[in-house]
């Protein structure tokens, strides 16, 4: 029931609501009991064990999973325990629980408004004769400062709500008070309890919505645009829930709005009912986020854009998913043993044991590469070139074959591509003189067409002027020199000499082993001693500094 972008992030809430509603079924729902207080009897109580059993039976899951699912329901406030003190945990025994009224469901009433919280705290204050404690008292003072202009309203509303509650039976009053208390337990948890409704930083939803809003505005006919006062964009869209997502609302909004239109809708160019320009600007602004879903003018421009889009889509290259997936499978099976997370890393994971031998052995330029690394050079030419040690060995091999200028040329082209803009002219010149000029010292063998094109391009050199030549040389090396390298004696020697890092030895006395834990975070180290953090960070002796 939340509107707009919140619905996308709150899909887990609607799933939970469906579970709760299916629990209410009179035949197949959960077994209900009654709660007996001193004089009153309040119906509709469920026991924790009943909930777990029903979930396990309905969804055919294990008891553990049903317990976890039930705990989620309780944490989000759809079920609340009746025993004091109220803590939102699900116990799989006789503890009684009750269902939360839909008004206080997280999706209906989210985000929780400050004014409502102030009224709730005020009510509690009145009931307890000013004996609010702890975080609630702090919040109350904070809200008094924030909402000082509205404090009259807060006090008046609190008093009136209490008086209205008095008109009910005692049992109902108790239930309603418990419901409200649960709602605020979920939305304003006491300190120390993690907030279940916390979401990560807002992702691209915000930016996308902003752009779309502007687009929707430009698509409106000019008459409507002029009647919208420009400060409207600055007015906050009130957090009251907009009944937008529910599909049955739209036809009824049509019916509600139609009596107010004087113009036929087709003339205005909107397919959905248009609003009378002078009287319903406010309705428009309050429904603005919903416009993203249903204002779409189907005029000629829109169709031209659609045709262009379809035409572009036709010319796109497509790969069959079977082909993609095959390549993907091949890649994962080949690289599986090389992945440190999947297959473990020898000698040991530095993040766990504080022993960075793994990193020193796999440093970019190391004298003796590990066996896994040497094997990786055989997977593809790209792997070989990317590894500095591999590239060096390949260069040595090419020297023995008297074709080292290919690799040098390739490296020079890379330098041109990734170098600074100011040096392009000089670099291109140097490359031409060294590799491409007729009679150059290290002349590279490129076919005539590519050579012509490159020479023509070198009149106005830019970053990518040598791309064709570079690709030609790359392909040459890949098809010719690379397979020979893999079959050569040099490579086989490398494989034989490569070192396999030994596994971390287990100590004889287990209790003397360093406890595996990560280094203490610098934030927790004492700020006074500046020499200490340096010493601690360098060596692996962090066993003393307990986090």
């Amino acid at each position: 029931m939340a509107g707009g972008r919140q619905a996308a992030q709150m899909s887990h809430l609607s799933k939970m609501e469906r579970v709760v509603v299916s629990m209410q079924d009179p035949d197949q729902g959960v077994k209900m009991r009654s709660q007996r207080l001193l004089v009153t009897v309040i119906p509709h109580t469920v026991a924790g064990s009943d909930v777990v059993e029903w979930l396990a039976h309905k969804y055919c899951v294990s008891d553990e999973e049903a317990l976890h699912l039930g705990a989620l329901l309780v944490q989000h406030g759809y079920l609340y325990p009746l025993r004091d003190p109220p803590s939102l945990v699900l116990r799989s025994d006789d503890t009684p629980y009750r269902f939360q009224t839909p008004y206080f469901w997280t999706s209906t009433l989210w985000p929780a408004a400050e004014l409502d919280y102030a009224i709730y705290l005020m009510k509690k204050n009145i009931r307890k004769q000013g004996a609010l404690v702890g975080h609630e008292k702090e919040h109350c003072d904070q809200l008094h400062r924030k909402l000082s202009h509205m404090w009259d309203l807060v006090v008046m509303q609190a008093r009136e709500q209490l008086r209205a509650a008095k008109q009910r039976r005692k049992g109902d009053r108790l239930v309603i008070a418990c419901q409200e208390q649960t709602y605020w337990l979920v939305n304003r948890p006491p300190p120390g309890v993690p907030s279940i409704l916390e979401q990560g930083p807002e992702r691209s939803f915000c930016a996308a919505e902003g752009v779309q809003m502007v687009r929707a505005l430009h698509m409106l006919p000019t008459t409507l645009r002029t009647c919208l006062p420009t400060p409207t964009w600055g007015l906050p869209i009130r957090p009251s829930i907009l009944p937008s997502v529910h599909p049955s609302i739209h036809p009824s909004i049509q019916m509600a709005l139609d009596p107010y239109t004087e113009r036929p809708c087709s003339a205005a160019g909107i397919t959905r009912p248009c609003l009378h320009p002078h009287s319903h600007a406010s309705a428009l602004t309050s429904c603005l986020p919903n416009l993203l879903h249903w204002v779409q003018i189907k005029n000629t421009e829109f169709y031209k854009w659609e045709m262009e889009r379809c035409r572009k889509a036709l010319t796109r290259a497509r790969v069959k998913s079977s082909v993609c997936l095959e390549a993907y499978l091949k890649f994962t099976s080949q690289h599986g043993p090389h992945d440190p997370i999947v297959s473990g890393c020898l000698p040991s994971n530095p993040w766990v044991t504080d022993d960075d031998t793994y990193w020193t052995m796999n440093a970019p330029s190391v004298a003796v590469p590990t066996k896994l690394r040497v094997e990786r050079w055989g997977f593809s030419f790209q792997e070989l070139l990317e590894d500095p040690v591999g590239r060096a060995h390949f260069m040595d091999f090419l020297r023995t074959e008297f074709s080292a200028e290919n690799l040098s040329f390739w490296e020079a082209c890379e330098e041109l591509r990734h170098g600074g803009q100011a040096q392009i002219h000089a670099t291109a010149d140097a490359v031409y003189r060294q590799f491409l000029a007729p009679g150059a010292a290290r002349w590279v063998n490129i076919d005539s067409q590519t050579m012509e094109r490159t020479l023509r391009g070198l009149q106005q050199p830019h970053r990518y002027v040598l791309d064709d030549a570079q690709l030609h040389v790359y392909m040459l090396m890949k098809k010719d020199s690379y397979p020979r390298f893999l079959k050569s004696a040099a490579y086989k020697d490398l494989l034989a000499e490569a070192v396999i890092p030994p596994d971390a030895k287990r100590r004889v006395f287990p209790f003397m082993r360093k406890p595996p834990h990560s280094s203490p975070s610098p934030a927790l180290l004492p700020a006074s001693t500046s020499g200490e953090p340096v010493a601690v960070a360098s060596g692996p002796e962090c066993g003393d500094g307990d986090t």
Partner: protein
Amino acid sequence: MAREECKALLDALNKATACYHHLVLTVGGSADSQNLREELQKTRQKAQELAVATRAQLTAALRDRGLGAEERAEFERLWVAFSGCLDLLEADMRRALALGTAFPLHAPRRPLVRTGVAGGAAGVAARALSARSLRHEAEGDFDVDDLRELEREILQVSEMIHDMEMKVNVPRWTVQARQTAGAELLSSAGASSVGAVSVQERTGPCDLSKALAATVFSAVLLAAVALAVCVAKLS
């Protein structure tokens, strides 16, 4: 005086909003019924009438250029409270619409949530309308038409709020509320006895039991006086 009238209207609107909030709490729960929807409709229509009347009075008062600074501050305070109240009412109306659509009463798609609230809320609605009791005249299909009405009314209320914001310029930050932090505890003698979580509480309204006690006591007193007179006469 204009100020007293405005204050009285605002109090009435406040009462109606609080009662409406209290009624909307139970929509979709086990206490939901056609009667409840009817009570909701009556309460919100009363609240809207009060809102229109208050707004007319307050706008007239604030437009008056010849007001003193103190009076103006007073009216601005009332204005801020009024617009806050109207915001609360509109929010509750929207939620009532969402909940009413999600839990329809006519063709039961979803079973109502068994929340444990079973009693009727006629007393609450009667309090909002300042009537003694409420007569229920709802037919079977009441909630379908009611929802359409509700949408129209929501649009009207939002339009009213928008008009208010555009036409009257009362900056919120200059208004100083009259109530201090502990003010609510002073004059709430009646409300303090509402220990909603305590079990040892009287069920009936205070007035009725007090009247009953008074009658019984006076009857006993009269009987004692009559006996004393008889004894005096006989002896």
